[in-house]
């Protein structure tokens, strides 16, 4: 199931996860049952999960059958009653989900889509969505991913390479902060603007919150 959380799993993946958990306890609970009676079914289910996800990647139709399709609950600001009835999704649930997604006023919603994972995706009306720099015609510089260069005293050489930097540069920067070795550093993170965040190990904040 990869790196998804329980709430993001497809229905069949959730079923498989529960079945695997159940199968794992069978030989553990009863000493008389050979361990292989649990291991083989678990491996089989894992293989099955990979096969099903592989097939659903290749086939739209099968994906629809296995994972279902997203359902539009609000379209152009109007609640689709038939869809709610078909999904047995009542208005209370809908309003609750909208509030949880920070849309307490249903009038602000253009589209609400119930995804196959059970999450509700909201597309607000254009006047109600958060402002973006594009709306203000403001140019913004590129903002990439800030990567950690040192974590718990260990240098992340791959991340240094991604920034086309080396340990010489890193040591030079650390020296500016009075740090003589990377092992003294809890976390050092560099963003695409070139700002280096460094925290030494054992740093404690004082009462007024400064370092």
């Amino acid at each position: 199931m990869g790196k998804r959380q329980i709430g993001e799993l497809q229905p069949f993946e959730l079923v498989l996860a529960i079945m695997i958990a159940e199968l794992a306890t069978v030989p553990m609970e009863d000493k008389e049952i050979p361990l292989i009676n649990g291991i083989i079914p678990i491996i089989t289910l894992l293989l099955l999960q990979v096969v099903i996800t592989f097939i659903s990647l290749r086939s739209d139709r099968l994906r629809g059958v296995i994972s279902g399709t997203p359902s539009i609950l609000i379209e152009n600001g109007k609640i689709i009653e038939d869809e709610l009835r078909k999904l047995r999704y009542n208005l209370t649930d809908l309003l609750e989900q909208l509030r949880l997604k920070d849309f307490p006023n249903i009038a602000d919603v253009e589209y609400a889509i119930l995804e196959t994972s059970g999450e509700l995706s909201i597309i607000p009306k254009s006047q109600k969505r958060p402002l973006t720099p594009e709306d203000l015609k403001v140019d913004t510089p590129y903002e990439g991913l800030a990567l950690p260069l040192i974590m718990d005293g260990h240098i992340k050489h791959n991340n240094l390479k991604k920034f086309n930097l080396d340990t010489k540069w890193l040591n030079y920067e650390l020296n500016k902060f009075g740090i003589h070795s990377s092992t003294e550093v809890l976390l050092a993170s560099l963003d695409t603007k070139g700002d280096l965040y460094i925290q030494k190990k054992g740093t404690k904040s004082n009462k007024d919150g400064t370092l």
Partner: protein
Amino acid sequence: MRLVFTMAVALIVFLGIGLYSEIWISNTAQEISIEVSKLEEMINNRDWDEASQLIDNIQKDWSSIEESWDIIVDHREMDEIDLALTRSIKFIEAESFDLALAEIAVLKHMVLHIAKKESLKILNIF
């Protein structure tokens, strides 16, 4: 493609191991069953000494087979066979015709029953 190939290989390996273990259990069960049938004949002929020797051999064979069957077969069923074997040995030692025959029959049935239960059949799946 690599994933499909890996899945196919894994599936073939699984099926292969499953089939092999089923055939192997069936064959060893047949071997024990043949020996037990010989034992039955000896008891019918009241050849107690030869029967006693044969059942000792069966027990030795069973000890080595048991270690391998333990991995696949339910231990409770293996324990039942151990019990039947122990009782059979004692009944043969005591030259008790009826009880020895009955216990041998149970022993034979249990060994073949395990092989039947582990076989790949619709009945076993459902």
